[in-house]
């Protein structure tokens, strides 16, 4: 079956280097994620909210966006995405440890409230869904200036129940704005299963109501995600308007470090999800395609763990913000 695996369709025309890079991005996010869980359980980081199980689709989109030119209005599970765009494990550990040098917020927000102006990642708060509308406003501005920048925004399936979801899609579709709406559907909004969130199985079906394409993709199939991301970005860039993409992903961890999903999910499902983990699947695919050997993968992991160890040490030496800075940045300090 190696012949079908290596055909253009199975690897989306991607060369070995791109496929390895994709895997590296996924692994780097996963290891950073796991490190933040450890720091949380050690009592050094008060909170963590994870991207484990969501990495493939985030990396797929991240690799198809043009860094520093395109715009991103993320949500709290987009760790892997931010790292593809240029944020580092150290950035996120600084945030987890509430340090002044945290580029997201200088230790003001909980971790996973992403934002970095240098990278065109807008600051995000905790209310769900507001960022979808910001994305349409960003895209409107790009359009008014005649730029072909693409704006990417994301949300979980729970967030699609918010009114802002409708308002944003409606407006983006009316004006054919270059926005990509990604729904990372992991089936649970904290403890509430998707069946109590929506009456139909696929959020993507709602695209019909706005006259835009709606695409469902297996969020654990990295190559399929890449293909969908590439198409949506191309479509937006050439001025054909928004796409609603729904990735069926796995939530491999509890909602957050303050939650225990064993209280509302059955043990067999949790075990089954581990078997479907996109990292395992992608690694197996790459080994089958012959673009990654077990040795390569181990080497990659060792190198990334080393990076993380250095990042953790440096972050721990970095100071927390001092109380005298709490009054800063309520309004512009410079008048512009």
């Amino acid at each position, binding site marked *: 079956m190696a012949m079908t695996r290596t055909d253009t369709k199975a690897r989306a025309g991607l060369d070995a280097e791109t496929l390895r890079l994709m895997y590296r991005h996924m692994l780097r996010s996963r290891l950073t994620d796991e490190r933040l869980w450890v720091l949380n359980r050690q009592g050094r980081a008060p909170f963590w909210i994870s991207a484990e199980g969501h990495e493939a689709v985030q990396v797929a989109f991240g690799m198809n966006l043009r860094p520093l030119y395109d715009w991103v209005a993320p949500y709290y599970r987009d760790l892997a995405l931010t790292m593809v765009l240029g944020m580092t494990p150290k950035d996120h550990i600084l945030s987890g440890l509430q340090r002044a040098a945290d580029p997201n917020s200088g230790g003001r927000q909980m971790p996973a409230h992403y934002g970095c102006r240098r990278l065109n990642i807008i600051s995000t708060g905790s209310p769900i869904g507001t960022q979808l509308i910001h994305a349409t406003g960003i895209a409107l501005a*790009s359009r008014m200036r005649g730029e072909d920048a693409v704006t990417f925004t994301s949300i979980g399936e729970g967030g699609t129940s918010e009114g802002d979801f409708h308002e944003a899609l409606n407006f983006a579709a009316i004006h054919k704005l270059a926005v990509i709406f990604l729904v990372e559907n992991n089936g649970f909004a904290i403890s509430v299963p998707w069946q109590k969130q929506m009456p139909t199985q696929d959020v993507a079906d709602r695209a019909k109501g706005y006259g835009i394409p709606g695409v469902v993709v297996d969020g654990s199939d990295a190559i399929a995600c890449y293909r969908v991301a590439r198409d949506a970005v191309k479509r937006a860039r050439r001025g054909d308007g928004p796409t609603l993409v729904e990735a069926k992903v796995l939530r491999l961890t509890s909602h957050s470090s303050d939650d225990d999903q064993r209280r509302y999910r059955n043990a067999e499902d949790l075990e089954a999800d581990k078997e479907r983990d996109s990292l395992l699947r992608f690694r197996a695919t790459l080994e089958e395609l012959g673009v990654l050997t077990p040795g390569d993968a181990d080497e990659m992991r060792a190198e990334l763990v080393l990076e993380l160890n250095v990042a953790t040490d440096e972050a721990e030496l970095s100071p927390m913000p001092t109380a005298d800075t709490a009054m800063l940045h309520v309004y512009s300090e410079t008048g512009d």
Partner: protein
Amino acid sequence: MPVKTYIEAIRDGIREEMRRDDRVMILGEDVGAKGGVFGVTEGLQKEFGEWRVLDSPLAESLIVGVAIGAAMNGMRPIAEIQFQDFILPAVDQIISEAAKMRYRSNGDWGVPMVVRSPFGGGVHGALYHSQSIEAIFAHIPGLRVVVPSSPYDAKGMIIAALRDPDPVLFFEHKRCYRAIKGEVPDGDYTVPLDRARVVREGTDIAVFSYGMMVHSSLEAVDRLAADGFSCEVVDLRSLRPIDREAIVASASKCGKVLIVQEANLAVSVASEVAAIIAEECFDSLDAPVMRLGGPEIPAMPYAPPLEQFYLVTPDKVEVKLRELAAY
């Protein structure tokens, strides 16, 4: 100097700034072909096109949220909310997002946006076209909340708001639109967004007010002047940040204070002004601080006797001033 109405002054300010700065745009319900339900944006779409004067869907969270996004991507948007009564669906975008963007990003991002909205009653607008809910926003650090009362200030403050790097809520009392006229210079000028203004100098009673109530207060003060009472009238103009210095100066000078607003009094702008005076002017006071505002009912009713019951009229201000004068 040309004499203009309040509504013309706002429009002039917007139009001139749109000519100077192509980042300035307007979005809201009916702002385009119709020129707004009150006519503030009349003629602007014709001059600046359908993108820069954009008729939005009927969705307030969207109107403000799009303005936030556009502002973060280099624009200077004005989000028009047709009536302040309908701003509530956008409160999440205003309070959770715009007000906190700079703070939560540690100064990385800002939201240079203006939200314009008419407020106030006395136009047979009933419960949902008459409210004065500015106190909700005046409570929130990170926002600027301004309420001009004169055409001169309206133009100078809308231009200043459009050049400010932070979110400004610009509230226009709808009875001012055509009733209030005044001298407005042609061309570019700004009025600060954080300074009160002494509209009438006096020595016996300091009256603090904003919006249309400045005019009701002036009318009442004129009647007392005939009886030899000298009242100072201060137009607060900015509700956040509030001009503590100006409040303390006039309250200390006069020793008697009346605060006049159209909104109901509990937990309001008048409460804040009274608290500042209680903290800073204790030794200068010759009488208890008095407040005059709307009654503690959910909103302004429709039928004229009920509407009149709600409204703060020059007659009601006069009664309160005489009470204070006699103290």
